[in-house]
């Protein structure tokens, strides 16, 4: 209850600014989380898939 009263006392502009800042921060971390995986070295198994595909195609010719 006390919290809500305090929130209502705050000017609306400051609330919006605070919410915007928080969303921005979440956005930055979200991109970081995704980019962390993008920047990981790709496991060999992935390239093996395409190497095997090459071998299959080569065998057919």
């Amino acid at each position, binding site marked *: 209850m006390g919290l809500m009263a305090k929130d209502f006392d705050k000017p609306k502009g400051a609330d919006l600014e605070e919410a915007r800042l928080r969303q921005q921060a*979440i956005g930055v971390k979200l991109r970081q989380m*995704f980019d962390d995986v*993008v920047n990981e070295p*790709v496991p060999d198994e*992935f390239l093996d898939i395409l190497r095997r*595909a090459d071998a299959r195609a080569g065998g057919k010719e």
Partner: protein
Amino acid sequence: MVERTAMDQGSENVFKRDLVALIPHLRAFARTLCGDAAAADDLAQDTVMKAWDARSSYQMGTNMKAWTFMILRNQFYSEKRRSWRQTQLDQEAAERTLVATDDPASPLALDELRQALTMLPTEQREALILVGAGGFAYEEAADICGCAVGTVKSRVSRARRALQAILEDGAYDRDGRPASEAMRSILSDAERLSQSR
């Protein structure tokens, strides 16, 4: 065997080069859908195989990233339908993994964000990741998810609000610390990151 126009060798090489370049992004998208890193890599590998097999149906010059993300997503949901029970178990395992992250160097704020993400419905999570981290426009995300642009927009905005609420109100707590600290650590971490750039 299915009849199809074979790609010429040159196009095939270009296709393969572009597909290889997309692997890191496919792994990242899969990780956000599956949570569990090993299951995510299985999903991403299946996607690479399917994309390679379907290469003759890819229109050269169109958005290959969106095309492969669509394959990954379809694969994820068809596996989920096939064995929803197994997926439930996987989900629980993923949540445990995410909660007890074994990487001591993993920043606190990221752990909390990962954990909060697992609490979102999958459709909200994928929309938010595609637009907020994957670099897709709303229209592209709508194509990938097979829904209307307006639907993507509302999913993204619901996901943002829900994430913020989870991080602020603390639907969970970690190591006995008040969960409201999650938002604080994300704010200060983001601030530090933006200053160091």
